[in-house]
């Protein structure tokens, strides 16, 4: 399948989803409303994640889909992904500037000149607010920490691929502790992820992956990430079997966030971190692709897993 075919397949699936009423278009690629049926599947999958991971004693944290800009700046996200970041700006001018703004708006000119950056930045991944929060509490307890987050995330990558939304939800478990604790967590979820998604009867594969780092420095980071097998993805074909879609990811950050935020284990060493992320919309899209748009007609075994 070449790029033209892949793009056509993505556009076709998006149109099918819109025609079926599962996604509600807004006129912006990658920005959709969701129907009740779509949300039901997301909620049932969210509950399934809790069934698999909820007994591990994670501390639940729910943040709005935005970050303290200072945390965002300290995270070095702009070093690696400047092209994906979404900063929130607001009008900062006086009455004269307001009149200018309205005039430009009316004349169809650029009206954004007097917009200034606020203290708020869109959350790029659900785990970002967690690290500075944990760092503020001081050294970790001996057993480390396990955190459960769920948030809308923003990435500026408009696409006609319904599986590449600009605003989408990510559930995550985040492990913070010694290298042994963190690696054990990731191994556990690599196994669980396969088993959990297998129970939904979708074709899947797990493979080494890399993040979409920016520029030549990014090429270096991507190749290093792959060589060290720091990121794995659980892939499910949605619009292409040759280029299946990452629906879960298993990430070992080594001591990157520990260093950035000065998080220390009980023994005083810099903490290591890892996370498992569940792409809620992508999983829903994969289920609709493989089991059809009418959830009442899904295989009984899959319905039982999700709805009981």
């Amino acid at each position, binding site marked *: 399948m070449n790029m033209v075919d892949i793009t056509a397949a993505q556009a076709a699936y998006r149109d099918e989803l819109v025609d079926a009423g599962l996604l509600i278009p807004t006129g912006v690629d990658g920005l959709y409303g969701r129907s009740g049926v779509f949300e039901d599947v997301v909620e049932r999958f969210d509950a399934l994640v809790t069934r698999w991971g909820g007994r591990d004693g994670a501390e639940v944290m729910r943040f709005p889909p935005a970050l303290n800009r200072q945390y965002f700046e300290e995270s*070095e996200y702009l*070093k690696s992904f400047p092209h994906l970041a979404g900063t929130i700006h607001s009008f900062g001018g006086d009455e004269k500037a307001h009149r200018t703004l309205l005039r430009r708006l009316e004349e169809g000119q650029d009206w954004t000149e007097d917009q200034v950056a606020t203290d708020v930045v869109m959350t790029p991944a659900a785990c970002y607010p967690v690290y500075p929060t944990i760092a503020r509490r001081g050294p970790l307890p001996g057993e480390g920490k396990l955190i459960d987050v769920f948030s809308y995330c923003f990435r500026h990558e408009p696409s006609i691929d319904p599986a590449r939304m600009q605003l989408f939800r990510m559930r995550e478990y985040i492990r913070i502790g010694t290298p042994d604790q963190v690696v054990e967590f990731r191994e556990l979820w690599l196994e669980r992820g396969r088993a959990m998604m297998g129970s939904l009867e979708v074709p899947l594969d797990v493979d080494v992956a890399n993040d979409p780092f920016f520029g*030549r*420095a990014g*090429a*270096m*980071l991507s*190749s*290093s*990430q792959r*060589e*060290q097998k720091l990121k794995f993805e659980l892939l499910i074909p949605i619009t292409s079997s040759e280029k299946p879609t990452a629906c879960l990811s298993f990430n070992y950050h*080594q001591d*990157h966030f520990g260093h950035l935020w000065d998080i220390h284990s009980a023994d005083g060493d810099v903490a290591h971190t890892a996370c498992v992320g569940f792409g809620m919309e992508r999983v829903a899209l994969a289920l609709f692709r493989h089991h059809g748009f009418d959830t009442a007609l899904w295989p009984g075994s899959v319905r039982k897993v999700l709805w009981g």
Partner: protein
Amino acid sequence: MIAGIRSVLAECGGLAVDAETLAINDDLYAAGLTSHGCVGLMLGLEEEFDVEFPEKLLNRRTFESIAAIRDAVRGLVDGGEA
């Protein structure tokens, strides 16, 4: 060239040890070179030696030791592929 590499390592590599104490075949990753440190090192070497690493050299192996860096930079300075 080795002295130049050591000086870039000391300035940009973020190593846990003194770059002067490293033998040219010592493993830089074992000496504390991180992925992000490696990016700083790569950019520092490009500036120091006025070269540009092609994409196929942007991997961990290129920067694994002072000797490996020397070989790569030498290949680029000589105007050919490393």
